[in-house]
């Protein structure tokens, strides 16, 4: 008797019949500079055998703007307008170590109120940067929903930064010796210099409590999701000593189990007045990197709340001469930026601008492990690992 073939089974007949070893050709896949998941203009030349890579070469330099060369023909106040564009996601955080380095060379003491304001804005920049990570990383893995929650809260933080500095991404709010002694743009014509906007401190506390609630929502959405767990657990494991020898810093290093946070060690801002934990991971995979950043948002919100409660009164800027001439010397100041360790090495000759400014950017070193970490992974894992490193091309290329 003839067997009636089930129509639905016809589709699968070819899969059933052919079960030979598939010859997978070698291929060079260009994950090109224009790609939604490469966080900017990063080009990965992936040499692959079938679905698995055996060698990945990153090609960078599409965003190289020549910061170090430009800085040699700029005065110190002019440089501060440029450097917040290095890591444009957390704009304010880039300015602070440079200012602290210049102030160290000039031996200027920053008033405490200005230091607290710098700290509050730096932590808000950290929240803003991590919120971008919370938005974009699940999106790359195929989960679009956390984006709406985290960007909503990021808007709250950016509105606060704009309220006090006038700019969302590129505040240019620091001055040598403190912060800008007035809100708004341009020189003030009033004799009494206004301080922070009146509503800033209460609104900040309110925003931080909302950020904490959103962190719980994000933890549910992403961390509780089975598919997210399957795509990130065990993917892109980075051993701790290898990470250190490559210069990987920030949440990536902490996710590998190294409890090292420059906020507890370096004295560029008064972090020793506040209590906060250093979240660390255990295995160093992408799952840990996500969890560490989520926990860091919570800690930052806590620091901001403590700072707002304890902010001292005082002046906003120390007395500095009108034309800034920094005495000769060399200094290196590093800070815990959201992406990692950022440092400025200033070689000063006593002039209006530095003789040499070396910018140590976090994402450059974070990205340098790509040839190691992307060896022998599947193509979807490339995206998962790339996103979990949380870099920004402006930071890589400077």
């Amino acid at each position, binding site marked *: 008797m003839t067997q009636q073939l089930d129509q639905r089974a016809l589709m699968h007949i070819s899969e059933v019949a052919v079960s030979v070893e598939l010859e997978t050709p070698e291929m060079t896949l260009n994950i090109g500079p224009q790609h939604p998941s490469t966080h900017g203009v990063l080009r990965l030349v992936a040499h692959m055998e079938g679905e698995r890579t055996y060698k990945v070469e990153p090609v*960078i*330099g599409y965003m*190289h703007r*020549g910061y*170090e*060369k*430009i800085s*040699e*023909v700029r*005065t110190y106040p002019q440089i501060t307008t440029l450097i917040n564009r290095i890591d444009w996601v957390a704009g304010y955080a880039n300015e602070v170590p440079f200012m602290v380095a210049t102030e*160290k*060379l000039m031996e200027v003491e920053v008033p405490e109120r200005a230091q607290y304001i710098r700290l509050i804005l730096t932590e808000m920049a950290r929240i803003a940067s991590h919120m971008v990570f919370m938005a974009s990383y699940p999106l790359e893995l195929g989960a679009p929903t956390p984006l709406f929650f985290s960007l909503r809260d990021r808007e709250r933080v950016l509105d606060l930064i704009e309220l006090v500095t006038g700019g969302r991404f590129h505040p240019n709010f620091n001055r040598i010796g403190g912060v800008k002694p007035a809100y708004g743009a341009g*020189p*003030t*014509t*009033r*004799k009494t*210099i206004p301080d922070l906007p009146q509503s800033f401190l209460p609104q900040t506390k309110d925003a931080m409590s909302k950020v904490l609630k959103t962190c719980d929502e994000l933890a549910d959405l992403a961390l509780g999701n089975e598919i997210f767990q399957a795509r990130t657990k065990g993917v892109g494991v980075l051993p701790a*000593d*290898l990470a*250190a*020898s*490559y*210069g*990987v*810093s920030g949440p990536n*290093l902490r996710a590998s189990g*190294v409890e*090292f946070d*420059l906020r507890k*060690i*370096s004295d560029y801002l008064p972090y020793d007045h506040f209590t906060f934990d250093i979240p660390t991971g255990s295995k160093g995979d992408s799952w840990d990197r996500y969890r560490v950043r989520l926990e860091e948002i919570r800690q930052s919100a806590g620091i901001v709340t403590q700072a707002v409660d304890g902010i001292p009164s005082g002046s906003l800027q120390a007395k500095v001469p*009108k*034309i800034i001439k920094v005495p*000769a*010397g*060399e*200094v*290196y100041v*590093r800070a815990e930026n959201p992406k990692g*360790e950022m*440092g400025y*090495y200033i*070689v000063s*000759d*006593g*002039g*209006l*601008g530095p*003789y*040499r400014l*070396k910018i*140590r950017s976090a994402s*450059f*070193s974070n*990205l*340098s*492990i790509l040839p*190691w970490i992307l060896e022998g992974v599947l193509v979807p894992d490339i995206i998962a690992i790339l996103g979990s490193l949380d870099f920004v091309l402006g930071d890589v*290329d400077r």
Partner: protein
Amino acid sequence: MTEDDVTEDQVPDADAGADAAEEPEVAPDPPADYAQQVAEVLRGEATSDFGTVKVRIPADRWVETAETARDELGLGFFSWLSAVDWANEVEVGDPPSETVDERYEVLCQVSDTSEGRLVILSTDIGKDEPSLPSLVGVYPGANWHEREAAEMFGISFEGHPNLVQLYLPGGFEGHPLRKSFPLLTREVKPWPGTVDVEGMPSEENVEAGDAEESE
């Protein structure tokens, strides 16, 4: 504070070790102490101006010193490697105020991940055919930093596996961060340097109708 009046007569000079508990203590200076310790281990001269520990070593001991720093001082975190072009005639910016020896000073910053101790290793290499052994065998992270220094300054790192250009497009001629490399925009409008930089308008000057004296 009354105890100090009693002890002041008895303390002859500042470095009497046994009576240290009763005299006004000289504040401990961690960067300077650490700089001394580092200088002994690495056999170089260390300075700690502005809290930055910098050790100068000769170029022939470059790799060996990096290994010692990693193994004996526990500085396993490689932060950055770059160079400074010391030149007396410059195409961009201001020339140095005092005459300097023309050289490339290669700097490598390493630190540790437990206490955050930081050391900048520094060595000098000459400007004709500048080259230095590569640190890739000691710190794998030096790979990209040395590529950047090679293309920006023209320093060749011996033993580097892949010394190709990192940032600049293929076919780019010249080494941008050398002081002899001009900036095109500054060819058109030269760097004013110390000549004319206006100060910020002060409050008094901007007030209308305020009879403030000008300098």
